[in-house]
C-alpha cells in the first residue's frame, strides 16, 4: 500500500508541474500521527488556509449577512449553487455582472457545485442518461437537459475559482449495478467536463470520486480519476444517510489513494465531530448548509454541542452564547436577549448565523494551528472531552475512525 501510494505521488507530481491550473497547494505541516495536514491553498482571489470549512451561500448570498461581515469573520472561500443560480438569475445575467463575484460583490474565492446533486435531490422527475440529467424546471415546467458541457458552461459564467464536475449522483444507500454504472459514467463525464472548460487558466475543475459504499468501485474510480490532470479531488456520494461506519471507511480509502500534492474536498460534511475526524483522515476542505440553516431555527453551535436559543430555559440566561467566542454576536448580546429578539425580528437569525459561521471557522483554525504546532492528537482528545459529557458517549464510528489513524481516545 505504501509503495503504491508513493508511486502515485510521483506520477501526479509530474502532471501537476505540466498543468497550468490556477491553484497551488503548499503543505505547511503534516501530522506525524494521523493523516491530517495543514496547507495553504492559493486560489485566484486569495490564499485559503486549510483545513477549511466553506459556508454555503446557495443563491449568491450568505443567509442575511453581508459580504463585509463574511469577510470580517475571516471566510476565504464560500459556495454558490449552480443549479439555483443557473435558474435565477441565469448565466447570461451573471455574465453581464462580471460573474458571481461581481454580482454578489464578493472579493474572495468561490466554489460552485455542478448542479447535478440539487437536481436529483430537489427535482422529483429527473432522469439520467448518458447525455446528462433531464428534468422539468420547477419555475416554468420546461424540460431541461443538464449535460456536463452545460454545467461547466454555467460555471464558466459564474466564474468560480473552483468548479465541480457534473457527476452521476446515486443515493449512498443504493446498492447494485446502478452504483457501478454511475461511477463509470462519472468518469466519462469528467472527461467531457475537462474538455468543456473554457477557462482552465482561471477556473479550477475538481473531479468527484464516486463508487458508493463499495470499496472496489471506489478504488476503480480513484485509479481512473487520478490519471486525469485535474487540480483537485472531491470525495462524493457520501453524507447522504449512510451508516457512519461505511462513511468513514470510504473517506479514508479515498484519501489513501489521492495524490498528496492536491487538495481533497469532502462534500457535504460540516458537523464538528465529522470535521475533526475527517481532517484526521486526511481531508482538507468541507462544506455544509447545516451551520447556517440551523442558525435560522435558533440553534447556536458551541464546543459542547448546540444550544436552542428559542427554548424557554434561555429566557433569563444573561451569558453570551459562548463566553469564549470572539464573534460580534457574543461580544454584545446575551442568550436572553437573542431569545427575546427571536420573537420580534429576523435580525435574531442573522446574529446566530454570524456566530455559527464564526464557530465553524474558528474550529478549523484551531485544528490547523494544532497541526502546525504538532499537537493535533492532543487537540482531538480535548475536543472530544468538551463535546461529549463522558467517554461512553463517544460515537463508536469516531472511535474506530480515529483508531485507524493511531489515535486511541482516552
Amino acid at each position, binding site marked *: 500500500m505504501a509503495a503504491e501510494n508513493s508511486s502515485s505521488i510521483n506520477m501526479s507530481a509530474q502532471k501537476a508541474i505540466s498543468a497550468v491550473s490556477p491553484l497551488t497547494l503548499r503543505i505547511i505541516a503534516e501530522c506525524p500521527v494521523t493523516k491530517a495536514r495543514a496547507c495553504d491553498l492559493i486560489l485566484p482571489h486569495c490564499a485559503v488556509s486549510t483545513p477549511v470549512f466553506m459556508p454555503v451561500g446557495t*443563491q*449568491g*448570498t*450568505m*443567509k*442575511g*449577512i*453581508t*459580504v*463585509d*461581515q463574511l469577510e*470580517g469573520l475571516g471566510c476565504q472561500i464560500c459556495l454558490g449553487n449552480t443549479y*439555483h443560480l443557473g435558474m*435565477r*438569475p441565469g448565466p447570461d*445575467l451573471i455574465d*453581464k*455582472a462580471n460573474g458571481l463575484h461581481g*454580482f*454578489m*460583490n464578493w472579493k474572495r474565492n468561490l466554489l460552485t457545485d455542478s448542479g447535478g446533486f440539487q437536481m436529483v435531490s430537489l427535482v422529483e422527475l429527473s432522469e439520467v442518461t448518458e447525455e446528462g440529467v433531464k428534468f422539468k424546471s420547477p419555475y416554468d415546467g420546461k424540460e431541461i437537459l443538464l449535460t456536463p458541457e452545460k454545467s461547466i458552461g454555467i460555471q464558466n459564467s459564474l466564474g468560480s475559482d473552483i468548479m465541480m464536475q457534473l457527476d452521476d449522483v446515486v443515493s449512498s444507500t443504493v446498492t447494485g449495478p446502478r452504483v457501478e454504472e454511475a461511477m463509470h459514467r462519472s468518469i466519462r463525464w469528467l472527461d467531457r467536463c475537462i474538455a468543456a472548460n473554457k477557462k482552465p487558466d482561471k477556473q479550477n475543475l475538481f473531479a468527484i470520486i464516486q463508487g458508493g459504499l463499495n470499496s472496489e468501485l471506489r478504488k476503480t474510480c480513484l485509479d481512473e480519476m487520478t490519471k486525469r490532470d485535474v487540480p483537485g479531488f472531491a470525495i462524493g456520494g457520501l453524507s447522504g444517510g449512510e451508516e457512519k461506519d461505511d462513511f468513514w471507511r470510504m473517506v479514508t480509502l479515498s484519501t489513501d489513494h489521492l495524490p498528496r500534492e492536491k487538495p481533497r474536498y469532502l462534500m457535504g460534511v460540516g458537523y464538528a465531530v465529522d470535521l475533526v475526524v475527517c481532517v484526521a483522515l486526511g481531508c482538507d476542505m468541507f462544506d455544509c448548509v447545516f451551520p447556517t440553516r440551523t442558525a435560522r431555527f435558533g440553534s447556536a453551535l458551541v464546543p459542547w454541542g448546540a444550544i436552542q436559543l428559542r427554548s424557554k430555559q434561555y*429566557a*433569563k440566561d*444573561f451569558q453570551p452564547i459562548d463566553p469564549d467566542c470572539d464573534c*460580534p*454576536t457574543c461580544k*454584545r*448580546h*446575551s442568550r*436572553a*436577549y437573542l431569545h*427575546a*429578539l427571536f*420573537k*420580534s*425580528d*429576523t*435580525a*435574531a*437569525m*442573522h*446574529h446566530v448565523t*454570524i456566530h455559527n459561521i464564526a464557530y465553524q471557522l474558528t474550529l478549523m483554525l484551531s485544528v490547523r494551528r494544532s497541526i502546525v504546532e504538532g499537537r493535533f492528537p492532543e487537540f482531538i482528545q480535548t475536543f472530544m472531552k468538551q463535546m461529549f459529557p463522558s467517554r461512553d458517549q463517544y460515537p463508536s464510528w469516531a472511535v474506530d475512525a480515529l483508531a485507524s489513524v493511531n489515535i486511541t481516545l482516552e
Partner: protein
Amino acid sequence: MAAGRMKLELFRVVQGTGRLGVLTGLGRTGQHSLEVPGCLLYSHCGTVPHLTQDTLHTLSTLPSVTQITLSNIAEHQEVLEAFKDGFKKFSGLHDTVLYCSLHDPATSFPTGHTTYKTVSVWGSGGRIELTVEKFMDLQKTIQPDWYQSMADGETWQTNTSRKRVRKSVDRTLAHLDECLLLHQKSQELEGVEIFGVVEGGDIQEERVRSARETAKRPVAGFCLDGLQTGSMDKALRTQLISAVTKELPDDKPRLLQGVGQPDEVLACVEAGVDLFESFFPFQVTERGCALCFSFDISPDPERAGRAPPAVLELHKETDAAGETQQNGDHIIDDQTQMTSFEINLKDKRYQDDFRPLVEGCGCYCCKNHQRAYLHHLLVTNELLAGVLLMIHNTAHYHGFFGALRGALANDKLDLLKRRVLGERDEQIKTKL
C-alpha cells in the same frame, strides 16, 4: 416633578413654516442631543429591523434616540426584572438614548380593548392588558431615558362618536396624572422624562382641550396621538395639529405618532411638529421597495442630479390605491401599499439594472450592490434583501430629515417641497 435635563433650543420659529432647533440634555447624563425637526430610530425590541450592530453602524449619521415599544417589550417584563439593569444594557445598546412608546407605529392592532382603567398592547404572545400600575412597573424595569405616558388613543376609526373622543381625552389625562404620581414616587425613574399624550380624535375642541390640559402638567414634551396615516384626511390633520401646537408651550418638543411619509412630514413640520418616528423606511423595506425620492436642494448642479427623475416611476400598484380605502368601516390606508416615494425592486425592469438604488447615495447598499442584485435577492426570498434595503431606506430617510433642517435654516422649505412633492405630482400627471 424633578426637573429633567431635556431642553429644547429653538434657532428659528417661523409661524407656518416650522421650528428649527436642537433638543439637548438627553439621556441620564444629559450628554446626547437631537436636532429638530428630526426623527427617532425605529426598532423591534431595541434592534433596527434586519440589522445587527455591524450593519447598522455602516450608517454614518444615526439619530441619538432609539424608540422601543411596549408592544414588543411588555411580554419580557419578568426577564427584565430578573436582569435588573434596564433594557439598554439588556439589548446591548450602549450609547443611545432610549425612548419607550406604547404601541408599534408600523403595526395596527385590534380595537375595543381599552377600559376605564386599562389599555392593551399586542406582543408575540397576544394581548397584554396594562393598568397604570403595571405600566409604571414596566417603565421601572425598562429604565428608558424618556417615555410616553399611558394613553387611550382609540379614536382613529371613522364614526368614532364625540362621546368616545371625549372619553379618550379624559382617560388619557387621568392616566397621565396617575403616571406622574407614581413617577415622582419612584427612585428608579429619577431623571427620566415623561411625555404627555394629546388626544381628541378629529374634533378640534377636544384636541385643544387635551392640549391645554396636558400642557398644565409637568411633562417634558408632547406626543400627538390618533393622527396616524389613514386615520383622517391630510388637510384635517394639518389643521388639527396647528390648532394643538398653538396651545402647547414653545419650549417643549412635540412628537407626532404614526406619520412618516415625506409629504406628510413636510406638512406636519409646517404645522409645528418637531419629532417623528422612523417606521416608514421599515414599511418600505417590508414591501421590497427602495426609497428614491429626491430631496437635494443644494445649488451645486452636479449634486442636484443626485436622484435622477428616471427612478421616480409610478407603478401600477399605486393605481389601485383607491380601492383599499373603502374597506368596511376602516379608512386605514393599507400600509403595505407602495407610495410614489419608492421603487419596487421586485419589478422585472430591475432584473438587469446594474445601477445602485440611488445614484450618489453613500449608503453601504448603494456603494456595494446594484438593483439587479437586490431584485434577485427579493425574487429568491433571501434574507439579505431586507438587510440591504433597510440600510438604504434608513440612510435615505434620515438624509431627508437632514435636508429638511437645511431647508429651514436657509429659507428653502418651498424649494424642498417642490423637490419632494413637485416631481411626484409631475409623475402622477404624466401617468394620468
